[in-house]
């Protein structure tokens, strides 16, 4: 058996023992840039192939298990009853799991609230929040970057943007962690996990329903009030199930992604002390450093899709109905696209990474993530005296898709 035909490579990627360094597995997967795994999942790991599939209309984000409604041969069931059932279930699915045309309408309504002014308005606030976090660590000889900065910063920012009371955070912290597992492929097959996620969704949906009712009564200058009261010229007012699903998605995305960008970012800079020193000397390097981090150690390693038709690509055919994994973090290190891809090099030209995905589903929160990462990393570079890692590699969170340290303990000689 040749190495690339090993149909367990993606299962190995999901194995927690490989969390600290999945990149050698990605290199082996790329030997077949579109590779069928033993469980029928198809994994795309080459840059060109991921890019083509991101733009392919036969690739769907509505990843219901394909066997949920097997064809019965009864046309009333196949074409009316079951699609209607799907339709109703659909309304609880946020736009990240939707296809055109619904996806476009929902996304447009979110973007209408994600205004340049509102996002840019968070810049100064973000700097102040970073300073507050570092203030609290100032007396300690060591601290946990995840608990003390990388997690609370994006959570506070998304709460303030959405208009979700920060003091309720302990309640939805657990909900967010639970629902983030919906992005892991296991959630498709694991009935117990699906049941737990449904239960959690009901709890958080109840919370959001109450909050949205309050926003409608007394709208404030926040995104949730905007979403609850705005009227799109084409789509009209967003329905309550869509509104709740959207609010939950934005809240969870704010909890589970940027934390990894900041923690992976500082980990990478500490492993490349020259780059940390250069950032300290020249904060204007931050945008380059952050784009390279998004390529080299992205917060989201892959997203799943479903093939809605047979797709010939890279010398193979993705079968209709096949679960599809777009392994962004592997495409980001494809030597066919990036010279010397395993080198962390903020000066690389032409850095077209998949750090925020791409095409229709490109990360809505990208500008916010950039602002938060820049505020955090420039402050850490400027203010930590002689920072070093207490453990390398650090322990990782469970997710293989949303991948990042669970804890990143730093030892410092002081905080300026």
């Amino acid at each position, binding site marked *: 058996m040749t190495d690339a035909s090993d149909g367990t490579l993606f299962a190995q990627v999901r194995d927690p023992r490989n969390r600290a360094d999945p990149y050698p597995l990605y290199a082996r997967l790329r030997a077949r840039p579109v590779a069928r795994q033993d469980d029928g999942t198809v994994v795309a790991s080459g840059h060109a192939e991921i890019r083509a599939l991101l733009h392919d209309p036969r690739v769907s984000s509505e990843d219901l298990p394909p066997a949920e409604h097997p064809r019965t041969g009864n046309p009333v069931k196949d074409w009316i009853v079951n699609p209607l059932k799907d339709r109703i279930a659909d309304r609880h699915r946020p736009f990240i799991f939707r296809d055109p045309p619904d996806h476009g309408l929902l996304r447009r309504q979110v973007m209408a609230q994600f205004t340049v002014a509102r996002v840019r308005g968070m810049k100064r606030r973000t700097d102040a929040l970073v300073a507050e976090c570092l203030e609290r660590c100032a007396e300690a000889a060591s601290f946990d970057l995840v608990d003390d900065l990388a997690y609370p910063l994006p959570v506070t920012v998304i709460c303030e943007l959405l208009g979700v009371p920060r003091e309720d955070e302990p309640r939805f912290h657990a909900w967010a962690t639970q629902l983030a597992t919906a992005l892991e492929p296991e959630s498709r097959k694991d009935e117990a996990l699906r049941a737990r996620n449904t239960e959690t969704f009901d709890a958080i949906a109840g919370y959001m329903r109450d909050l949205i009712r309050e926003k409608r009564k007394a709208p404030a200058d926040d995104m949730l009030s905007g979403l609850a009261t705005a009227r799109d010229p084409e789509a009209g007012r967003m329905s309550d199930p869509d509104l709740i699903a959207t609010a939950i998605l934005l809240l969870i995305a704010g909890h589970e992604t940027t934390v990894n960008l900041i923690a992976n970012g500082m980990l990478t800079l500490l492993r490349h002390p020259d780059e940390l020193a250069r950032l300290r000397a020249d904060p204007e390097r931050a945008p380059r450093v*952050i784009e390279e981090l998004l390529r080299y150690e992205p917060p989201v390693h892959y997203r799943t899709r479903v093939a809605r038709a047979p797709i010939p690509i890279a010398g193979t055919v993705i079968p209709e109905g096949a679960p599809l994994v777009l392994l962004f973090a592997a495409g980001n290190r494809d030597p066919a696209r990036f010279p010397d891809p395993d080198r962390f090099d903020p000066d690389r030209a032409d850095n077209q990474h998949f750090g925020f995905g791409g095409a229709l589903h490109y990360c809505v929160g990208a*500008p916010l993530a*950039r602002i938060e990462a820049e505020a955090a990393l420039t402050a850490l570079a400027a203010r930590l005296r002689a920072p070093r890692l207490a453990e390398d590699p650090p322990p990782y969170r469970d997710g293989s898709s949303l991948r990042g340290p669970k804890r990143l303990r730093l030892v410092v000689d002081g905080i300026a």
Partner: protein
Amino acid sequence: MRVVVDLNRCQAYAQCCYAAPERFVLRGNEILVYDPAPPAADRAAIERAVQACPVRAIRVEHDAPAGAA
């Protein structure tokens, strides 16, 4: 400083509009309007826009410093 956007590459991801809102604006969600000669004071904002573009469609040419050959 001169800014050139390859509008054949541009796919209206709008990341430049967040990075440098005074110099890049999307009209009707798909037509990019931009300032081809921004002031030198905007250098950092323009650099953010260049770096943030998902399809690398923005190019900047810096003026030679005064007195340089």
